[in-house]
């Protein structure tokens, strides 16, 4: 298929490679096994996989299932860069890669990584796109010819002279894709390209993937969320280094239990249909609505908002005096514009609050004021009725704990138990008391068996729970979590959020900064929407999702189940809730 876009036209490999066979698959793995050096078990086990020219394949699976290893085999990062025991054959366009160096494969296989910061090396967008072409020794005129179409393909035309560090996350990731496209590879591999992005950035990248899909490029997209791979030709589900299921999206995405078992977030729409006993795949809200009307023609549409599913308040909620009171809080960096502008906020003991908003809206700045990491330019933050700035660190820590987005920003101790004990030791607690607190919080986060383990050897999900435990050991009444599920697979996300919900039920107030709509819908009871340093909305989560005007203006997308619920005149916060409501009204 001809793309129409010169950046995407047939591969023109530079260097020593021979012409590829047009009949050959774009890529093929034949009986490939790989065990990382020092790895206890194989990351890939006798895996056989093919992708046809122009095909898009979605690869799904839990963390550690072998998805990234599979991707890295395609450009020889495995085993050239990541040492280990490799067996099997990998072919790109019919040519075997045996013995090739990573850079030799680069013109034919473009790879986009999750960490967009780590793949940008230049101070100018056009030069960033040119970087790989420079490495190939391409003439300046040819580079100039390829840059514009590559930037146009990713929607960054006109950004040529911008500094990549000034771009948003979504733009940076699109730039990384442009720099790969400029080489005109036959195959592009996207390894969880949207994990670190906000909803707007995710939407940008998914739209781009769809457009590339329509232009005849072979694509492999690795994701945790099945929903975003709905446009793929074929899906592959990995578990423990093996393909356990493969097929068209409509076949695989209806297997809700299997997807969940494999740490993949099943599509909300299919989950609703499955709960209603409808054996169908819905690729869009329209399709799901039609399927429901077909199966349940007598379902009664709600005409009154009071008919919406009722939200049950958890036990820990308390309407008493506020735990946190923010009055007229404004903040700006020296000589900078306002980051926060006259914020008022009250948080009651036992509340579960989500702070949402685009990058740069002031979410994290607000949260950092609550724990005293920043001092207000004007206004005050009161903790339990006392001005936070007058509280000694020990009392602040006992009032409010902060779990950073990246758990690796705090982990340093030799064992899990020492990591947890670090906080209490700083407050000179008695060793017995410290032991008791360690036992208590490690049990709470499910790491009691890991107390003697090296924290650096834990999985990302375990490290995230360890970070929570080490803050909980100070017994705060308010816990602030900055993007607590970033980089976790669906199973780990659910486990993390079950822990957070339990802590909330135990009476700890939760403030969660997140970009993930379903986390807000299913777990939070109150939403604070920030935009340009101001509070745009502060109220009930269900009312928030009923406000389509707010959602549209804040680029925050409701979960698909919530979108579907709207078609039936109600607001549901999860697929299960909507299914129950529909059943009751049929």
């Amino acid at each position, binding site marked *: 298929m001809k793309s129409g876009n010169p950046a995407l036209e047939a591969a023109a490999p530079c260097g020593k490679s021979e012409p590829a066979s047009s009949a050959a698959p774009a890529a093929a793995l034949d009986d490939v096994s790989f065990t990382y050096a020092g790895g206890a078990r194989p990351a890939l086990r006798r895996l056989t996989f093919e992708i046809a020219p122009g095909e898009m394949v979605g690869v799904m699976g839990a963390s550690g299932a072998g998805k990234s290893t599979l991707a890295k085999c395609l450009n020889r990062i495995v085993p050239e860069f990541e040492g280990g025991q490799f067996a099997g054959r990998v072919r790109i366009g019919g040519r075997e890669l045996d013995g090739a160096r990573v850079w030799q494969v*680069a013109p034919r296989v473009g790879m986009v990584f999750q960490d967009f910061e780590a793949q940008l090396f230049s*101070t100018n967008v056009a030069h960033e796109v040119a970087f790989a072409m420079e*490495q*190939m020794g391409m003439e300046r005129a040819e580079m*100039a010819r390829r840059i514009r179409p590559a930037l146009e393909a990713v929607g960054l035309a006109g950004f040529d002279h911008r500094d990549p560090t000034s771009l948003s996350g979504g733009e940076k990731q699109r730039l990384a894709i442009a720099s790969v496209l400029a080489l005109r590879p036959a195959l592009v591999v996207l390894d969880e390209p949207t994990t670190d992005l906000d909803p707007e950035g995710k939407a940008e990248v998914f739209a781009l993937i769809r457009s590339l899909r329509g232009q005849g490029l072979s694509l492999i997209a690795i994701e945790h969320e099945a929903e975003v791979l709905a446009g793929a030709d074929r899906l592959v589900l990995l578990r423990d280094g093996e393909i356990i299921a493969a097929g068209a999206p409509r076949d695989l995405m209806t297997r809700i239990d299997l997807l969940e078992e494999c740490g993949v977030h099943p599509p909300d729409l299919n989950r609703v249909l499955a709960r209603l006993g409808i054996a169908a795949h819905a690729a869009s809200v329209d399709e799901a609505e039609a399927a429901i009307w077909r199966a349940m023609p007598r379902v009664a549409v709600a005409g009154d908002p009071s008919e919406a599913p009722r939200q049950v308040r958890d036990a820990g909620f308390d309407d008493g005096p506020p735990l946190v009171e923010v009055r007229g809080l404004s903040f700006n960096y020296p000589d900078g514009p306002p980051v926060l502008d006259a914020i008022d906020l009250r948080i009651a003991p036992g509340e579960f609050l989500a702070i949402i908003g685009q990058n740069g809206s002031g979410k994290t700045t607000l949260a950092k004021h609550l724990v005293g990491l920043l001092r207000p330019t004007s206004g005050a933050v009161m903790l339990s009725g006392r001005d936070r700035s007058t509280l000694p*660190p020990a009392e602040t*820590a006992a009032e409010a704990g*902060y779990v950073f987005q*990246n758990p690796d*920003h705090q982990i340093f101790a030799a064992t899990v138990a020492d990591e947890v004990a670090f906080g209490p030791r700083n407050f000179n607690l008695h060793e017995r008391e410290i032991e008791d607190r360690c036992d208590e919080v490690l049990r709470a986060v499910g790491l009691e068996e890991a107390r003697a383990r090296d924290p650096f050897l834990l999985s990302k999900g375990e490290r995230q729970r360890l970070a929570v435990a080490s803050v909980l050991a100070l017994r705060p009444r308010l816990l602030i979590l900055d993007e607590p599920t970033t980089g976790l697979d669906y199973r780990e996300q659910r486990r993390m959020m079950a822990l957070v919900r339990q802590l909330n039920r135990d009476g700890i107030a939760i403030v969660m900064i997140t970009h993930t709509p379903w986390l807000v819908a299913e777990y939070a009871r109150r939403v604070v929407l920030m935009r340009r340093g101001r509070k745009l909305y502060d109220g009930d989560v269900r009312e928030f999702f009923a406000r389509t005007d707010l959602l549209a203006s804040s680029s925050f997308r409701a979960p698909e189940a919530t979108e579907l619920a709207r078609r039936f005149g109600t607001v549901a916060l999860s697929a299960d809730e909507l299914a129950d409501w529909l059943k009751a009204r049929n």
Partner: protein
Amino acid sequence: MPIFLYIEHHSFVHRLHPTVKVLALFTMFWSVYWVDHPLALLPLGLLMLAVAQITGAWPNFYRLRWLFILVVLTTTVAWMVFYRRGPALIDLPLIHLSRASLLFGFGRGLKLAELLATSVLFLSTTKVEEFTAGLARLGVPYRVGFAITLSFRLVPLFIDSALTVVQAQRLRGYDFDRGGPLERARRYVPVVIPVFMGALRKANAMAMALEARGFGMSRQPTSFIDYPVRARDLAATFSLCALCALYFYIYYSGYGAISPN
């Protein structure tokens, strides 16, 4: 808040050929190196101030103002302890304050400040790609030049990461300011380990991304940006060579030294 020093500006210095800018960096280092007397260092300082004005680099100097003050003050005082020559104006058990120790200490402080200022001016006016190109023209292998320039880009990121780690540990009640200097240094272990581990992960991710973009395919990659040599580059090179010669002459003739008396 910007974490890189480069400032977009259309000054004469910004438009110089990268090789000339690298040459200017070495020239200033060279000139500062040969002289100790503050009066000999003063013209270089004034030159740097003029360049800062031309290049619009003041915001970077303002950001680093405390570092400059600290460098000059601590160095001046430190040399009063170790440089014990010349008739004493004030002689305390630890401090030997003489005209010579004052001049020597202040000269050393000024010297360090000027080295720092040279680096700030260079990074304020030179993009990392230009630095790589400049080094390559001077015969430094591309891979080495790229690694050097990439490290300049990474340092601010690591500083940013270290600040986050400090915040995370402070929130767990950790007091970095307890004890004497050695104890304080030791107390930074909970910062050093996460930053070091993060740096390793980042370096690994970058190395993978680099190879996946073809880094290593050519020993001398082509350059998308053309850096033509213009008359101003030749004039600047001539001036820099003259400055090198002048300061070597000042050193050679003994004018830049400090007499103990």
